[in-house]
């Protein structure tokens, strides 16, 4: 009895009706997420509709992309386990296996991939990738050998948090944080502010449509560093006035991930279609430096460099009076093989199913003519 009961539930979970409705909802999400890009920009629309479990329309919570995908995933797994039959409809079965892999790959990408940029000027080299979206608060302690860097990811920082680390004595308390702000003349006078914050204050702005244009900022209270240093500080990105806590310089910047290798830009080359301003191709010639060895690599459109799980793409460039700079986008994605495999599997499945239909078509025709 009990087994039957359980099967009934499982059968319900494998029902295509679930897919029908959740896929319909997914379609609504895709449409909403596409239209919202006009207002919110691509990154925020994507965060709101696709990368969320729930989102709010006014006061009403609605299921987001993650939960919809999860439901489809469960539906698919149960279907494959108990309902589908390889013998009866092999094509359909294979196609669903492919879909399962595609969803798995999507899951891996959503949780374990990271992307950022690497900007290198001709003749220079770089060893780190700057994240697109997250920022970090760093204290840089210059020393003879190598700068000592202590970093706190802005992803975690929220007002009220206290930061401590063995590399410095005192403590830093975060008072305010901004994900986008601009700097204006200070209207009130607060004697506890030191340096830049004495004259200026940050004004909160709504997040920009183009996410890379956001300027992060924070206000922090520093104590235990000594009387001359203790006080409140205002920090924003791209500040041209350095803030020092004793010997250590304090900066907000795009979060950096250091690589076990180094890339040196030898030459950046841009080609135009003759007689026009329309780009025909971009190309970066780089040296890949690792363990004292160097290797010449050409990175160009549709021909990225893959190394140590990272993939470097030619993404943009900066031209100016001095030497050109190349902008490479760097991606680390553990799920990147999945779409390749799953698409092949899905297409084989559908093809088998289609081929199975052909004899039926022919037969009907013969019957008619005969």
């Amino acid at each position, binding site marked *: 009895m009990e087994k039957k009961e359980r099967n009934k539930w499982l059968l319900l979970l494998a029902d295509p009706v679930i897919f029908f409705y959740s896929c319909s909802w997914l*379609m609504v999400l895709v449409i909403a997420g596409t239209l919202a890009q006009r207002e919110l920009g691509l990154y925020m629309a994507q965060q709101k509709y696709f990368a969320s479990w729930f989102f709010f329309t006014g006061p009403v919570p609605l299921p987001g992309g993650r939960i919809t995908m999860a439901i489809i995933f469960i539906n698919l797994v149960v279907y494959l386990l108990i309902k589908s039959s390889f013998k009866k409809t092999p094509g359909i079965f294979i196609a669903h296996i492919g879909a399962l892999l595609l969803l798995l790959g999507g899951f891996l990408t959503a949780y374990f991939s990271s992307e950022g940029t690497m900007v290198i000027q001709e003749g220079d080299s770089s060893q780190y990738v700057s994240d697109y979206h997250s920022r970090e608060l760093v204290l840089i302690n210059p020393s003879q050998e190598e700068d000592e860097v202590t970093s706190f990811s802005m992803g975690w920082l929220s007002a009220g948090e206290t930061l401590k680390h063995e590399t410095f004595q005192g403590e830093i308390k975060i008072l305010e944080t901004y994900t986008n702000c601009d700097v204006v003349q200070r209207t009130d006078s607060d004697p506890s502010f030191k340096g830049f914050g004495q004259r200026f204050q940050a004004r909160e702005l709504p997040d920009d449509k183009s996410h890379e244009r956001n300027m992060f900022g924070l206000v922090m209270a520093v104590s235990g560093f000594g009387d001359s240093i203790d006080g409140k500080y205002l920090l924003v990105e791209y500040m041209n006035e350095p803030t020092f806590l004793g010997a250590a310089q304090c900066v907000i910047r795009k979060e950096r991930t250091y690589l076990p290798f180094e890339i040196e830009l030898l030459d950046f080359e841009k080609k135009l279609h003759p007689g026009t301003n329309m780009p025909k191709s971009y190309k970066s010639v780089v040296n890949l430096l690792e363990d004292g060895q160097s290797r010449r690599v050409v990175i160009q459109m549709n021909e990225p460099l893959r190394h140590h799980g990272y993939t470097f793409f030619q993404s943009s460039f900066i031209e100016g009076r001095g030497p050109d700079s190349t902008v490479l986008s760097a991606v680390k994605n553990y799920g990147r093989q999945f779409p390749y495999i799953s698409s092949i599997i*899905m297409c084989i499945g559908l093809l088998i199913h289609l081929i199975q239909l052909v004899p039926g078509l022919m037969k009907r025709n013969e019957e008619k003519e005969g």
Partner: protein
Amino acid sequence: MKYSKLVLFITFLLALPMGFAGSENPSYQAAAKASANLPILHEGRVKPINTFAQVHLLAFYGKRKTEELGATEWLLELLISPEKADNRQVFDIRNAAVSEALNLEFNKKHKYSFNEIWPEMRKSMDFLRKAYDKPKEDRDLVESQMLELYSNLSRYIEIGKSLTFLQKNFGLSSEKLASAFGIKAGEKESLLYFHKKKDVFASFLQQMRQKPKEELNSEDLEIVHLAQGLDKVRKQDPPVIFQVIPPENGSDSVEWETLWSLLDGREMDERQTRYVNMWEEIASVFTTGKNFDGTFEESKSSIYEGVSRVKFSMLNLEVWTNKTDLFYKSVAFYILSFLLIIISWAIWQGPLKRAAFYSMLVGLLLHSVGIIFRMLIMGRPPVTTLYESIIFVGFISVLACAIYELMRKNSLGTFSGASLGAMLHFVGFGYASDGDTMGMLVAVLDSNFWLATHVVTIAIGYGCAFVAGFVGHLYLFFRIFKPKGTERLKALTKNMYNTSLVALFFTLFGTILGGIWADQSWGRFWGWDPKENGALLIVLWFLILMHGRISGIIKENGFAFGLIINNIIVALAWFGVNLLNVGLHSYGFTESIAMNLVMFCGGEFILGLIAYSFARWKSVT
């Protein structure tokens, strides 16, 4: 069988190239024929002069030839005899408000000449300047059309200056001077002619310098006068558009030069002289009506021998394609096929059915030849631009319908194919009027492998989706008007399911290929870009329909309705994305398209809804 012969005959007549419907002036014809296939670098591509002329005539006049002149003839006239060209009514002004603003007398054809417009245009400079300073979206219709007209006029003026050094406007009245320059007194010669006589000028100047001021006579003055006149023309802003001189063989440069740039005072080398002489000869044939030197064609091909990116076979092919307008012929056959099938249903079955099918096949043949020629000329896969995607989707739709007709022979395939082919051709013609349909591609798109796989697969998917949508229409039509033909309805049901499966296969495969391309070039498989989402919507919609059918939520009528809705989704994914103007994929958009798109989607939705409700109501009763 005799009917099919008749069809073949009609086919033959229609397929004959119409020839250059140009002027009757033989010197115009001869010059145009000789220069139509000369290469020119324009918008990054080496193309024949004929295409260059057509693109501009299309922008100014709205058509690829005028009533009196072919495109090349018009261009030559503008280059060589601008005083005649300036009186040709080649500017199309449809909007009465614009012609009123320019104080132009109304004419029925809405066509005006340069000489009519330009003086008035110069009076409206203030208006234009203010309109230009406004942001694009704030300009009203008159303002943006005036600006467009102004930019067309400027372009016209620039082209018109390209060969002014060949115009015979300069002469000498003194017998002695004239003979020193090798002409008769009072005879007019061109700037180029005097440019070549630099040493004669030099010797005169030498003499003059040695004379004291008071001894200068009228002849000296005439020389100075002539030199000043020549300088005045020479010192104008040199036009840059007419780039007809390729870089030297083996040189690294890819830039082409204008003829004017050769007259900058440097000594012309032999190679450059040959280009100038060639144009001089064309101009003299054009103006005097004398025949070409017998060796002209030969020397023409020897001049361009070994020049990179210039192949006369391809240039000739392009001129020929321009001339024959294969897609226009192809649409004529689709329409013929459509009419024949309607007549065959209405009154006379028998042979007309077959004639309609053949007519569609001829249309399809012309259609595919047109696509293949474009591929040959550009050395690219069939789909690289929005325009090409329309043409290609049309081709796939007709092909799918033709295969279906071969299998079923119930004339529904012909009907669907002819209608879809004709409709998509007309949409394509709307896009073709934008200018050169064979433009160059930005860096990220310049990859033949991905264009050939992803884009073509997606286009095939769109084509199949439209066929499925059409079958959906047919199903509801027969459900309502011929509900007793159960055999036919059953066949149609099966067709709906199978075509949808094929369409799903191609859209899914194409979308994933697109993802893989994105992964290769931007580093992410999926970025929720509008174009990607559009393609995804089609796939999701097919999946919903199929799973709805399996779970019993959607029945035949619903499925047919769903396929009609799918037409809307395909149209939006295809064209609507460009409305959003966000994302990496938006590649071309004109305002009228938005209106057509809205009308198509609204029409389809209302039609589908009515047909569906009616069909359901019929099935219930």
